[in-house]
Every structure is written in structure tokens, then in C-alpha cells.
């Protein structure tokens, strides 16, 4: 595929996720979901992700929020990719996506439609937009595992609200 064919295809994928977002809208009853709301106070992006798990398996991901096309399309792709995966598979997919937007080597096989956002790696000022939904999912999955390791029966549900974290900052 030539570069222009590929970019044409990628553009269609991004636009499709932006205009027809997958898994959009939050569950009316949040019981049974890990709900994570992440905000980027510097730009106003505000995204909520809900994850329903059973044991190791992700049964459902919902997402809803306010943000630019990159933020919203990316969250839609995330929700589609992670659904039906195991928690550890999902974490690997998130890791690969982050590598891609940070212009590092990554495994394109793992991240499906989200490969269409590879152009973000040239736009460092938009990396936070692209990763907001993924960070929310990552936080939720971490919390579920933490709860489980503490032996909590309700480990798979809860609510987290935070500003976009800075854990991607380079350690000094």
C-alpha cells in the first residue's frame, strides 16, 4: 500500500471512530463497573471509562466524554480493542499503544484500528489527547487487580476521579 493510500485509509478509520464512537454512553447503573473519570485540566478534555470484568476477563468497556477528535476517536478504538481481552492482554495492548504515540518501536499487530493514530507520534502536544482514554482504562485495571490482591469481594467495582496523571513523565 502506498503512503497516500495508507493515510487515506487511516483518515477514514479515525473519522469513523470520531463520528460513530463505539461503546459510547455510560451504564445507568454503575454497580459492577470500575468507573474512571480522567480530566486534563490544561485543555478541558474530560473522559469517563467504565470497565466490567469477571475474573481475568474484560466483559465490557463503556466510554463517554468531552474532547477533541484525537481524544474521542482514540477512546473509541481503545474500548473496542480491550473488550473481550484478559486484563493482562489489555495491559499489553495499552503498553503497545503508548509506545506508538511516543515514537518508540511497537507491535502494530496488537493495536488494530489504533494504528491509524500513529501520526500522533509527530505531534507531542497531542499525545495526552490520544492517551487519555487508555490511561483511564489502565488505571481502572490496576485498581481492580489491587482490590483483588487485597481480597475484596467487590474488587471489580469502584470509582476513580483524577486529573490526567503524570506517570509518563521521564524519571530524573
Amino acid at each position, binding site marked *: 500500500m502506498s503512503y497516500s493510500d495508507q493515510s487515506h485509509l487511516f483518515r477514514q478509520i479515525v473519522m469513523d471512530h470520531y463520528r460513530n464512537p463505539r461503546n459510547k454512553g455510560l451504564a445507568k447503573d454503575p454497580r459492577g463497573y470500575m468507573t474512571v473519570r480522567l480530566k486534563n485540566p490544561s485543555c*478541558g478534555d474530560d473522559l469517563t471509562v467504565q470497565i466490567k470484568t469477571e475474573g481475568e476477563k474484560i466483559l465490557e468497556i463503556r466510554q463517554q466524554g468531552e474532547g*477533541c477528535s*484525537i481524544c474521542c476517536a482514540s477512546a473509541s478504538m481503545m474500548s473496542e480493542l480491550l473488550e473481550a481481552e484478559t486484563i493482562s492482554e489489555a495491559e499489553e495492548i495499552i503498553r503497545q499503544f503508548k509506545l506508538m504515540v511516543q515514537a518508540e518501536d511497537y507491535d502494530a499487530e496488537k493495536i488494530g484500528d489504533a494504528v491509524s493514530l500513529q501520526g500522533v507520534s509527530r*505531534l507531542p502536544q497531542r499525545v495526552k489527547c490520544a492517551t487519555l482514554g487508555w490511561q483511564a482504562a489502565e488505571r481502572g485495571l490496576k485498581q481492580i487487580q489491587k482490590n483483588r490482591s487485597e481480597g475484596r469481594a467487590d474488587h471489580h467495582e469502584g470509582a476513580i476521579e483524577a486529573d490526567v496523571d503524570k506517570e509518563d513523565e521521564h524519571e530524573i
Partner: protein
Amino acid sequence: MCEEKLLTADGRSVADIRKDFPMTEAEENGHPLIYFNNGATSLKPECVLKVMDDYYRHYGVNVARGVDAIGYKATHAFEEVREQTARFIGAKKASEIVYVRNTTEALNLVAYSYGNQVLKEGDEIVVSAAEHHANYVPWQELAKRKKARLVVAEPDENGVVTPEILENYLSDKTKIVALFHISNVLGASNDLKALAERTHEAGAVFVADGAQGIVHERPDVTDWDLDFYAFSAHKLLGPTGIGVLWGKKELLDQMPPWQFGGEMIDQVDIYDTTYAEVPQRFEAGTMPIAEVLGMGAALDYVDSVGYDFIRRQNEILGKRMVEGLQAIGNNTVYNPNNYANGVIAYNIDGVHPHDAAGVYDREGISLRAGHHCNQPTMRFLDVQSTLRASVSFYNTTEEVEKFLEVSKKAGDFLDVLF
């Protein structure tokens, strides 16, 4: 177009003065930079950079310490700017000028030092629904500390707080009224003289956030009979890290210090300390000396250009931006009547402001997308965020035309990715 005829107070054209600003030569994404984010901070003229460089190269020592000649020179220059600033804003005394970091720090100083002292439970503080967070959150916090009430005045449809509107929110419990001079989102201008008069009739003090105002209109704090006026140098061609709190001497005199340490003391005994007079009482520790000197050069530069020129050039550019955007028709302008200060808040219809900003950025146009540190105004407009193009007097009509061309293409926002 018109700008050929428009000349500065010292007889120069826009093309001439652009040469004073090194960043007018800058490039962004392979295009000449078009800087339309002047509401965030201004570009700096060469003379400001030179004054700061000279200080560090030739007399870069601390002020108000010791008796050496070089220290005297630095101190003298540092205090000269205080006098110059006082003259610039029509203050009666140089001692009414307190050096601070920026407008935010100036307003916090008033909220802590003055507010903590005078406010009692049940008292009221009036702000407007169009304040920058710097003139909103400090008062919100003060109200919480003192169990006072924050009263939020709704501006008119143009974003202006008229004296008549203010009157509706004043009561015998009002102790402080804090309002913007010019709005950072809607470009609306408040008549501070009339607002201060109404405030005083109600027995309260009037605090003005001049961060955007002083960029467009010279305040006359004495004639307008204000009580406090706050501004930052960096929006007015000066360096970052220095700003001014002006306060009436009799008010500053009764205010306790809010930060403690060197330079602000009178006598330090073992268990107690008496404090220096105003303004040093509020200037703890070594101040940003080079920045103070840079601010002095910036004020000189503003005088050489003249507020008349600044106002007229901003109005020409602002008017063309609003008319041009309205002619294109793919957008919503939120302040179609307040373009005179060169600040235009708008959105491209159906396009998130960050997506649109990415299109402008790709063409070398730097503007602001977001809530502009002004969520109260976003609520007032009932939007999440907007684009804001804010011009300055060194911007050109050619730049505005390019901006309008790019505005037509802002719907193709995914281009930035490919």
C-alpha cells in the same frame, strides 16, 4: 490597508515597529510565525532584552544591600522603575507600587493581607461571572476562610459589568468588589471609575484586575479613585516573573505582611520582629531585579508607541477578524461587538477547538484553545471551551487575512495527523 496611515506616537509604522520584536522573525512548522496569542503573553521588544542583559553583564548585583557604588547603581535603577510605574498608572506615590510576581500574586496578596483583616462572617465579596481564575479563586477561598459570601454578578450580553448591574449586587454587607478592567475572553471593557464610585457609595473597597486592561488602556488609579490595581509586566511587552500591585497608601499601610524573611524587616529581636514600611514590607527576599528593569524598558516602549496607536491598530485588526469570520460563516463569534481590544472568542462550528487549533498551528498561526483560565466565562457562554485569537499592535492586516484563509479550512482538522 489602513495601517500605512496609522503611525505610532514617535512617527513609525507597523512595519517599522515589527523590527523591534525579534520573535516577529520566528517560524513555526515551516511558516512565518503569526502570533495571535497576545492575551496569554506579549512578544518582547529588543530594548527590554537589552536592559536585562546590560544589568546582568555590567551591574548584576543585589539591591538595597551594602554601600558599594555598584550596589547603589542597581538599587537606584530598581527604585527608578517604581517611580516610573507610579507615573505610568497615575499613582500619587512610588511607595504605593509593590513589586510582585504577576497579577495572580498581587490579587492573592490583597485577598490574604487585606481580606483576612477586614472580612467577618456574613460579609460579602462581589466578583463577576466573567473573571479570570486569578480574580475569582482567591476571593472564593477568602470567603470560605471567613465564612463570608461570594456574590457573583452576571455581566450584560456583551460581557460588561455596568455600574447599574453592579448596584444590584451591592449591599451594606459588601466589603470588597473585585472586577476585571478588560476581559481576557470577551474583550469587554469595564468602566472602572464608575464602578469604583458605586463601590465606595456602598462602603466597600474596589480591586481591579488590570492584567488585560493595561495592555489596551492606561489606567489612572488616582483619577478613577481605585483602591487596588493589579497587573503583570509580561502581557505588556515586559518579562515574565514581575508584576505590580498598586494600592492606596492608607490601605497598604494597615495591611500586615504575608510572606516573611529578608528585606521586609525593620528590627529582628529574638522572639519578635517589626516590619519594614510599605512597599518593602511586601517584598520578602531578593526580588526579580532584571525583570523589574525589563518592565521599566517595556513601559518606556509603550509610551514611545502610545496607547492611541495601540488602540487603533487593535481595533482595525479586531474589526477585520470579526467581519471576516462572519463572512466565512462556518463559525460562531462570541463577542461580535467587543472586537476593539483585538480579542476574539469563537468556535468553528462542529469542530472541537483543539482540532481547529491544530490546523492553525500547522500553518504557523499560534492561538489559544481551551477555557483560557476562565471557566466562569465558559459557563456564562455555555460552552466547554473556545478558540481565542488575540492580536497586538505589531500584528498586521496581512496576518489577519492569512488567519481568515486558514479559518476556512479548519474543518479539515484530521490533516494534522497525516
